């Protein structure tokens, strides 16, 4: 984090660069071929960050998919990202959940831990504290299923590391606003 600041380019934006924030965007799209490529291509082509991206169809009848993107940038960059996304023809709606009020985000992870003896007991005790479910077990391994915020999953994975962490599979973030309204 202590990298020397590069000199500002004369063509770079006069807009401040210091206040980088993380935002969660919900994007409703037509579920048609290429739509995910358009979204991902926009991020790579314009140099935006993707921290997490999930996509699945949410309304079969209407062929609507919902993409949840966690991205980072200054408020100005985040506004640009929203507007650039809105320009993509098959996109119905872009909602910045982070500016829209309260919302919930969750991730699902499967965590494989191998070990014997005392460490197995400790592994199970911690899993219980995190309300992680055992979904596969052998005499020398567990696979846990865990749902929660990104930081909760990060914490659990860190705890499992010295106890014989083998591998992790995560879904990325899904998010929804609180209260009765739809996006």
């Amino acid at each position, binding site marked *: 984090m202590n990298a020397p600041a590069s*000199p500002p380019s*004369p063509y770079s934006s*006069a807009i401040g660069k210091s206040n980088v924030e993380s935002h969660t965007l919900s994007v409703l799209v*037509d579920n048609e071929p290429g739509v995910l490529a*358009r979204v991902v*291509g926009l991020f790579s082509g314009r140099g935006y960050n993707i921290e997490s991206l999930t996509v699945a169809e949410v309304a079969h009848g209407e062929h609507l998919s919902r993409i949840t993107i966690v991205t980072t940038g200054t408020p100005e960059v985040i506004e640009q990202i929203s507007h650039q996304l809105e320009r993509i*023809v098959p996109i119905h709606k872009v909602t910045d959940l982070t500016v829209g009020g309260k919302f919930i985000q969750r991730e699902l992870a499967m965590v494989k831990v191998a070990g014997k003896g005392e460490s197995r007991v400790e592994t199970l005790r911690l899993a219980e504290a995190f309300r992680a479910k055992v979904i596969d077990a052998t005499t020398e391994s567990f696979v846990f299923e865990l749902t929660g915020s990104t930081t909760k999953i990060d914490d659990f994975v860190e705890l499992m590391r010295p106890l014989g962490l083998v591998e992790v599979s995560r879904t990325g973030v899904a998010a929804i606003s609180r209260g009765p309204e739809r996006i």
Partner: protein
Amino acid sequence: MSRQMTGAEMIVEALKDQGVETIFGYPGGAVLPIYDALFHQNKVHHVLVRHEQGAGHAAEGYARSTGKVGVLLVTSGPGATNAVTALTDALMDSIPIVCISGQVPTHLIGSDAFQECDTVGITRHCTKHNYLVKRIEDLPRILHEAFYVAAAGRPGPVVIDVPKDVQFAVGTYSAPRGIHHKTYQPKLKGDRDKIRQAVAMMAAAKKPVFYTGGGVINSGPAASHLLRELVQLTGFPITSTLMGLGAYPAPDPQWLGMLGMHGAYEANNAMHDCDLMIAVGARFDDRITGRLDAFSPNSKKIHIDIDPSSINKNVKVDLGIVGDCAHVLEDMVTLWRSGAHEQDKKAHESWWKKIDGWRARNSLAFKPSTETIKPQYAIQRLYELTKDRKTYITTEVGQHQMWAAQHYYFTEPNRWMTSGGLGTMGYGLPAAIGAQMAHRDALVIDIAGEASILMNIQELSTAVQFRCPVKIFILNNEYMGMVRQWQELLHGGRYSQSYSEALPDFVKLAEAYGAHGIRCSDPAKLDDAIKEMIDHPGVVIFDCRVDKAENCLPMIPSGKAHNEMILPDEDDDIGSVIDDKGKMLV
């Protein structure tokens, strides 16, 4: 009205229904059914180009000179990849074109078949939208939708990739009905409150300036009319971008000339010193702003644009109005007329006095010569000898392009076609053919450089075949002039690879293609030679031998601000004006 027909017939039918009279294309294996369908009718006129890039630029020239959607038809694989530069050009300059490309049959897609390429994958980044049509049932809807998407909102290129089996398949065609696109509905009307706020800011301004761009042209002739009305009502000065030339008549005293890197001193200084900037259909491109942190530091900024992502993209503005230029300008004119505005007359007077001071600096001046033709002089003479005709000007890219923008005075929109955003050498000749096909009786001139013209010289053959009497006016200085100028600025005058060696004899070249060639190197004979070009009924190449060393000035060097221009009489040592940071820029 729905009828049974093949996919290929549907394409031709849709072109007719969309009012397309001329398309530009090149046949190949994957579009043969479409060419067969074209053979059986005579409503849609096909212009055979010599390279698909030419088809794309011709469609752009057609579109920009008419306000209609331009169409090109190319085959799969190399046909599609050759069109990519033109598609990108249209995306950057917001030109509505539809490109229909053939594709290998659906069952071969992904098998690396002969002349297969992932056209929708390749063109996803250089089109506004694109489609791969996998089922004949989808074809009619996609065809009509493509024309809507290309033209609606901020215009742009759209690709429809049609596999050969879909072209042969039979389905039900229906004519376009009022399209209500389910997701793409650009906002045309501006927010009334914001427009009111804008008018109040304009009424209070002491040092205002209009800064207008290609969006005014794209919005249609009504937008140019309304702009003229508003500028004259307010009495404000106006400057336009390269893409915006012609929206406001250049000879008018309120016009400050083009702004930006090679803009007029008065235009750039007015931008720098103004207290209110009204940006209309312009996008704060880096050629316009120069150094961003020193860009118009003390002004409030109003930005009218149909594309919400243009607002606050490069420059933070105080008031962004999303809407079509014509709609917003109309509301502004109405509001301005209905209110009694107490403008600060005294402040305006002193603002104009300041502008006149900058104007007196005469930044477009050049040293006249009786020995050699100065390129600026050539453009001035060309303007004087063509201004009373219906004239369309296209350009290639480089010094000649900037000189044309500086010294040719445009009074009407849609008369000026140039590659602004992408800067595509080779644009001008095919674009001129496109414009001439749409305006058969007009005078169409491609102002070119000797290097640029060679990039799509093959289209000379197209012009001759279709009796498309375009005039190619080459400012021949035997250099890639703008490259040479930058090498002088940045690289100690080491002219690496920028000399146009082994040039063809352009007069003989013209003759070889069946066109007419003229050469002139004497300023005293220039007028007669230009008249000869104009009067010749066919295609002409005019090899205008100009001063080889002339630089294009004034100039905002890279990394500098609007008020740090190099002026023509200060160019003795242009090699030392750019600092290390500026050298990094393009």
